C-alpha cells in the first residue's frame, strides 16, 4: 500500500465515521473535526521535504494497510499484561485494548476529580471538552489534524481545584495479534485546575507481531499553582511505531515535569510543546533514548516563554547502537517582554554503533534582553580513558561500557519522582544493555 492510498482510505473512513455520529455532526466539536480533516487532506502526510520532518521519514511505516476502526472487547488476562503496569503500587488505570476502552482492566474515578475516558467526557462533560478541545494542540500539523478529525477516545483527567490524586494514573494502550495492523489515534485531555496535582504514566504496548501505528495527541492545561508529572515509557515491539504530540499550557506558578524514555519501537516521534501563559511557572523536559538496530527516535520540543519570570530546564540524552538513528530539535522561544526568563537546554548523545547517527539542532529565538538562556549539544563516543580505568579494575569491557552508559541514563531516570517507576526503568535499562547487575545509584 502506498502513502497516497492510505490517505485516501482515511478520507473515506472519515465519511463512514461521520455517518455513524448521527446528530453529533451539528456540534462545534464536529465542526473542528471536519475542518481538521480538510486540513489533513490538503497537507497530506508529512514528508522529509518539510523542515520539521527532514530527518524522519514516515514512508516505511505508512505503507501498511492499517485498520482505522476498532472492534472492541478483546479479552486480555491481567496476569499476561501485569508486567506492563507499575504493579507494585496501587494506581488508577485507563486501559484500552485495540483502541477500545476496557472497563475490565481499568480503575477510574469520579470522586473529587474525574479520571476516565475522553468518550465519557464527550457525553457527560461537554462544557469542559468544548472549553479545551483543540485549544492547545498545534492543528497546523497534519498528524495532529488527522488525530483531531477522528478524535473520540483516549484518556480524560480533570483534577478539581485543590485536589491531589491519591495515587498515580496509568494510561496504557494495548494492541493484540488478533487485531492485525492497526492505526490507533488516542486523544487525551488533561486539565489540572488551580492548585491540583497528579502523576501520570503513559505507555503503548503491542502484544502482536503486526505493524501498529499510534498517532496520539495530548492536550494538557495546567492552571495556577497546579503540578503535573508526566512520564512516557516507550518500550514497544519493533513492529510498533508512535507519533506522539503533546501540547501543554502552563498558567502562573504551575510546575510541570515531563520525561520520555524511548527504549523500544520501530519509530518514535515525540513533539512536546510547552507554552507559559502565566508568570513564575516552571517546566522540566527530560528524555532518555536508548536505541538498537532498526530503531528511530525523533524528539521535537518547543518551549514558548510568552511571559516573564518562567523557568524551563531541558535535558535529553541519547545512546545509539547498531544502525539506529536519533533526532533532537529543541526550540526555545523567548518573546520580547518575557524578561527574567531562565531557559536551559542540554542534549548529549553517545554513538555506539558504527552505522548509528544522530541529528541534533538547538533552536534558540530570544527577543528579550534580560534573560538567562543556554544550550549545549554533544555527540561523542564513550570515554576510552574511563573505559580503560574500569577494565584495569577487573570489570570486563561489556560491563564497563554498560556501567558508563548506565550512569548516563541514570542522570535522567534519577529525576523520576516515583520510586517504583525508577526501579522499573533501571531494570529496563540493564536489560537493554544486556547486563545482570542491578545498581542502586
Amino acid at each position, binding site marked *: 500500500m502506498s502513502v497516497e492510498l492510505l490517505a485516501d482510505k482515511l478520507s473515506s473512513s472519515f465519511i463512514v465515521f461521520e455517518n455513524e455520529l448521527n446528530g453529533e455532526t451539528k456540534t462545534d466539536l464536529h465542526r473542528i473535526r471536519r475542518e481538521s480533516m480538510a486540513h489533513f487532506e490538503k497537507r497530506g502526510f508529512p514528508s522529509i521535504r518539510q523542515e520539521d520532518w527532514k530527518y524522519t521519514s514516515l514512508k516505511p511505516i505508512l505503507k501498511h494497510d492499517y485498520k482505522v476502526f476498532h472492534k472492541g472487547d478483546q479479552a486480555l488476562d491481567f496476569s499476561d499484561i501485569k508486567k506492563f503496569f507499575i504493579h507494585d503500587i496501587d494506581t488508577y488505570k485507563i486501559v484500552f485494548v485495540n483502541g477500545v476502552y476496557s472497563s475490565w482492566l481499568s480503575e477510574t474515578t469520579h470522586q473529587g476529580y474525574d479520571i476516565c475516558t475522553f468518550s465519557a467526557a464527550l457525553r457527560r462533560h461537554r462544557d469542559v471538552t468544548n472549553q479545551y478541545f483543540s485549544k492547545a494542540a498545534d492543528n497546523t500539523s497534519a498528524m495532529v489534524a488527522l488525530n483531531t478529525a477522528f478524535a473520540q477516545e483516549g484518556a480524560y483527567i480533570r483534577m478539581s481545584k485543590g485536589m491531589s490524586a491519591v495515587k498515580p494514573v496509568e494510561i496504557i494502550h494495548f494492541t493484540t495479534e488478533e487485531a492485525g495492523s492497526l492505526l490507533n489515534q488516542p486523544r487525551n485531555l488533561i486539565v489540572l485546575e488551580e492548585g491540583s496535582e497528579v502523576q501520570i504514566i503513559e505507555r503503548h504496548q503491542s502484544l502482536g507481531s503486526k505493524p501498529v501505528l499510534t498517532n496520539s495527541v495530548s492536550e494538557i492545561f495546567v492552571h495556577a499553582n497546579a503540578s503535573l508529572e508526566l512520564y512516557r515509557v516507550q518500550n514497544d515491539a519493533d513492529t510498533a511505531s508512535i507519533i506522539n504530540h503533546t501540547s501543554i499550557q502552563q498558567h502562573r506558578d504551575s510546575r510541570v515535569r515531563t520525561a520520555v524514555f524511548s527504549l523500544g519501537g520501530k519509530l518514535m516521534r515525540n513533539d512536546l510543546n510547552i507554552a507559559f501563559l502565566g508568570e513564575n511557572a516552571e517546566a522540566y523536559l527530560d528524555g532518555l533514548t536508548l536505541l538498537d538496530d532498526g530503531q528511530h527516535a525523533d524528539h521535537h520540543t518547543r518551549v514558548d516563554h510568552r511571559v516573564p519570570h518562567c523557568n524551563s530546564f531541558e535535558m535529553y540524552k541519547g545512546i545509539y547502537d547498531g544502525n539506529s538513528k536519533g533526532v533532537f530539535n529543541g526550540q526555545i522561544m523567548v518573546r520580547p517582554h518575557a524578561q527574567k526568563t531562565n531557559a536551559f537546554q542540554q542534549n548529549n548523545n553517545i554513538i555506539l554503533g558504527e552505522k548509528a547517527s544522530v541529528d541534533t539542532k538547538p533552536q534558540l529565538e530570544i527577543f528579550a534582553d534580560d534573560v538567562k538562556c543556554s544550550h549545549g549539544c554533544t555527540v561523542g563516543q564513550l*570515554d576510552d*580513558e*574511563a573505559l*580503560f*580505568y*574500569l*577494565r*584495569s*579494575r*577487573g*570489570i*570486563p*569491557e561489556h*560491563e*564497563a561500557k554498560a*556501567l*558508563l552508559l*548506565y*550512569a*548516563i541514563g*541514570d*542522570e535522567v531516570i534519577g529525576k523520576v519522582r516515583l520510586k517504583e517507576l525508577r526501579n522499573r526503568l533501571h531494570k529496563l535499562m540493564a536489560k537493554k544493555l544486556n547486563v545482570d*547487575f542491578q*545498581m*542502586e*545509584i
Partner: protein
Amino acid sequence: MLHIKNLHASIEDNKILKGINLEVRPGEVHAIMGPNGSGKSTLSSVIAGREEYEVTEGSIEFLNEDLLSLSPEERAHAGIFLSFQYPVEIPGVSLTNFIKTSMNETRKAKGLEPYPAKDLLKKMRDCLELLEMDKGFLSRSLNEGFSGGEKKRNEIFQMALLEPKLAILDETDSGLDIDALRIVASGVNKLRSPKNSFVLITHYQRLLNYIEPDYVHVLFNGKIVRSGGKELAHELESKGYDWIKQELAEV
C-alpha cells in the same frame, strides 16, 4: 613473579621503550626513577594493558603466564593493579557501586560467588579507615570533584580492597602534600607482605623516605641504565639526573 625481557614498545610510531629488562620476585619493592619522558609511565601502561601502546619486541611474563596476551581486565583478575598517575573522573558511577562491580567481577572470573554485601561493606569501612578517608566518599561519584590528594588516596583504597599480587604505583607521590603522602605511604606499608610486590614509579626520591625499596632502577631514554639498592635513590637526589646523563655520554 614479573619477568620483563627486552621490552620494546611504541605509540604512534614513536619508540618509547627500547629494551627493558626487569625481574620482580614476591615480596620485593622496586622503585623505578627517571627524568620526565624517559618512559616510566609507558612501562606502567604496557603492564596494565593500555591498548594504544604497541609492543614491538620482547615479552612480559606474570606468574609464568604471557601477560601481553591478556586483556586489561584479565590482567586485573590475575592480580595486577595500577595506581593511575591521573585517575579518571567518572560522573554517575558511585564509588560503592564501582568497588562492588570491580570486586565481584574479579571473584566471578575466579569462579567465586559474589561477596556477601555485609562483608564487603565492612571491608570497605576498614580500608577507608586505613586511608583516613571519610565514609561520605562511598556515595560520591568516582573521582568526580576529588582533590588531587583524594584521588591518589582513592587509588590506594582500591588497592587495599583488591589485594593485588603486584601493584604498580605510577607517580602516586606527585601532587601530594606531606600529610597525604604519609597516609598513602602508611597504607602501602601495611599492605606489604612476603607474597605481594610493588613497583613504585617516581620522579622524586621523597616517596622512598616513606616506602623503603629493595631495588632502585634508573630509566633513561627507554632503557634501564642503572640498578642498585636504595642508596642509588639518595645518590640521584643529591647529584640529579644530569649525573646519569653525563656518565652515559662519556660511555
